[in-house]
C-alpha cells in the first residue's frame, strides 16, 4: 500500500468563534492532481493555509507522506516537501528575479543560518539559479526588480522559486487568478507538463483550468465537504450544481469565451 501524499483527518478551523472549516477529511494519493473548488468564502484558502501551516488547525490532524505535521510550523513543513503558492504571487518585490530564485535555493545550504557563507561566492548555487531562470524563460528579466514585472511574470518567478526546491506536494492557491484570458491555455499546458512525482492540490475559480487538469475534485461549501469525486461525477452531481457549479460555469465561461 502506498503512503498517501496528504491526509486530513477531521480537520476543523475556528477563528473568533466562526467555524471556517468543519470536520474536513480527505486523502490525496501521490502524483494526484486534486482541485478544491467552492464559492467565495467556502474556506478553500483557509484549508490550504492549514495544510501549509500558516494557520494552526483547531482540531484534527494533517499528515503529509505519512508524517504528522499538525504541530509543525510552516517553515518546518517545507522539509517534508510541502510548498504553497499564493493568490498574490509570493515574491519579494524589491529583490530581483535572480535574488528571488537564489533566496529559495540558498535555504539551508550554509551553516549558521547562512552566516557561514557569501551569496556571491556560492558559485554552485549561482549556476543552479541561472539554470532555473533559463528553464522558466526568466533570463531576460533576471536582474530586474520583481515589482517592475507584470503579473504573469511575477507568477512565473513565484513558481520558479518553488520548483527550484523540488516540492513533493505543491499547493496552488488560484494560480490562474490575474492572468489574462489568452494566457490561460498556455498556463494549463505548463501545469500539465509538471512531473508526475509531484502531488498537486489546486484551489481555482477558473473551471477551464480545473476540469482540464484535475484527476479528482473536492467541493467545499460553508467550510464542509459537499462532494468529492472525478470531474465527471462532480459535473453531474445535482447538489453541486445547485450550490455552486451551474452559476460558476455559466458566469466564468461566458466571461472567458
Amino acid at each position, binding site marked *: 500500500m502506498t503512503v498517501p501524499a496528504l491526509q486530513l483527518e477531521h480537520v476543523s478551523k475556528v477563528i473568533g468563534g466562526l467555524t471556517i472549516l468543519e470536520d474536513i477529511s480527505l486523502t490525496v494519493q501521490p502524483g494526484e492532481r486534486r482541485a478544491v473548488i467552492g464559492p467565495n468564502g467556502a474556506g478553500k484558502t483557509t484549508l490550504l493555509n492549514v495544510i501549509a501551516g500558516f494557520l494552526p488547525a483547531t482540531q484534527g490532524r494533517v499528515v503529509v507522506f505519512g508524517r504528522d505535521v499538525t504541530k509543525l510550523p510552516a517553515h518546518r513543513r517545507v522539509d517534508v516537501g510541502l510548498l504553497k503558492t499564493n493568490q498574490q504571487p509570493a515574491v519579494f518585490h524589491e529583490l530581483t528575479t535572480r535574488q528571488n530564485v537564489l533566496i529559495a535555493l*540558498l535555504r539551508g545550504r550554509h551553516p549558521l543560518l547562512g552566516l557561514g557563507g557569501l551569496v556571491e561566492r556560492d558559485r554552485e548555487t549561482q549556476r543552479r539559479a541561472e539554470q532555473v531562470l533559463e528553464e522558466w524563460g526568466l533570463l531576460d528579466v533576471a536582474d530586474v526588480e520583481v515589482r517592475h514585472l507584470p503579473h504573469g511574470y511575477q507568477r512565473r518567478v513565484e513558481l520558479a522559486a518553488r520548483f527550484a526546491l523540488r516540492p513533493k506536494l505543491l499547493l496552488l492557491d488560484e494560480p490562474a487568478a490575474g492572468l*489574462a484570458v489568452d494566457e490561460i491555455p498556455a498556463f494549463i499546458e505548463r501545469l500539465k507538463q509538471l512531473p508526475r512525482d509531484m502531488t498537486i492540490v489546486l484551489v481555482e475559480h477558473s473551471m477551464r483550468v480545473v476540469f482540464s487538469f484535475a484527476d479528482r475534485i473536492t467541493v467545499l461549501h460553508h467550510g464542509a465537504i459537499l462532494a468529492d469525486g472525478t470531474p465527471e461525477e462532480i459535473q453531474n452531481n445535482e447538489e453541486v450544481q445547485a450550490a455552486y457549479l451551474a452559476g460558476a460555469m455559466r458566469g466564468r465561461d461566458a466571461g472567458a469565451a
Partner: protein
Amino acid sequence: MNALAIRRQWRLAIVAVLAVLLVLAPALLPTYPLSVLTEILIFTLFAMSLNILLGYAGLPSLGHSAFFGTGGYAVGLLAKYYGTPAALALVIAVVAGILVAIVTGPFVLRTHGAYFLILTLSLTQVLFGIVWLWRKVTGGDDGLPGIPSPRIPFLVGRISDTANFYYLTLIVVGIAVAAIAWIVRSPFGLALVGIRENERYLEGLGYPTWTLKYVAYILAGGFAALAGGLFAYFKGFVGPGQISWLLAGEGMVMVILGGAGTFWGPAIGALLVLLLRYEVSAFTQRWVMILGIVFILNVLLLPQGIVRLPQRIREIRARLRRETTLAPPLAEATAAAPDRSVERVIERS
C-alpha cells in the same frame, strides 16, 4: 555583466581611496576635526548596527540606544571599579550588549512595525530608569566620569593621544564594519531582506524567520554595544544620555537620511548629522532646525536616502530625455496600449 563589473571596480577604488584617506587623516587634520572624525566613525558603527534591523530586516527599533548605553556602562563600570584593560572591557561590553539582546529579544520580537517601535522604546526607557535611579553604582544623572582613554602602546610617544585613539577606533570600527559587510552579503543577510519584504513568504520557503530576526537582533545589539563602549572611552564619560531613546532616534535619522537597507547609507547619514551638529552649531544654535530641514528635503527628494543620489540623478535625466523625445499624447497612448511585453512595463515604471 560588463557594466556591473566596471561598477564594482569603481566601488573598490572608492573604498580604497577612502581607506587611505582615513589612515592618513591624523597627518592631514588638526586635533579638533580629528576628534570629530573619531566620533563619526563610532556613530557610523552605531548606525550600521541599527541598519541591520531597520534597513535590512525592516524592524524599526527605537531602543537601539539600550545596547549603546549597555556597552558604555560596561566600559565605565569596569574602568571605575576594576581598572580592566580596554581590550578586555570592550569584549565584555559586546557580551553585555549581546546578553541584553538575548533577554529582551523574545519580548520585543513578538511584534512588528509600530508596536515593535514602542516596545523597543520602552525597553530603553527601563534601562534609562535603572541607570538614573541606581545612583550608588551608576552615578545616576552624574554618570561615571574619568574613564581613562586607552592607547595603542606601540604608537605612544610617536603620535598625539588624539591620533592614537583615532587609530584605535579606526581599527575596531574597521573590523566591525567588515563583519557587518560579511553579514549583509551572506545568505543570512539576503534572508533578512526577505523578512523585510514579506516575512510570511520567506517562511513559506522554509526559513525559520523568528530565529533569523532574533539572531539579527542579537548581532545588532553586540555591534551597538561595541560602539557604545568606544564612545565611553572617547568621551571619558558615560551618562544616562548615552542610553536615552533620543540617541536611538538620532541613529534612526542617520540610517534613514543616508539610506536604510544600503550598506554605506548609515555612514553617510552619521557623517552628515555630526557635521551639521559640529559645523553648523559654530554659526547658529539652531542646528537642529537645519537638520530638520535637511531631513524633510531628503524625504521629499531622496526618499531612499542620500546614497541613492547618483541613481536618482540618472533616473531623472532618463525621464527628462524621454519626455522631450516623446510627444505627450503619444506617450499616453503607448502607456495605455495592452502591451504586455516586459521591456515596455519596465520602461514605463
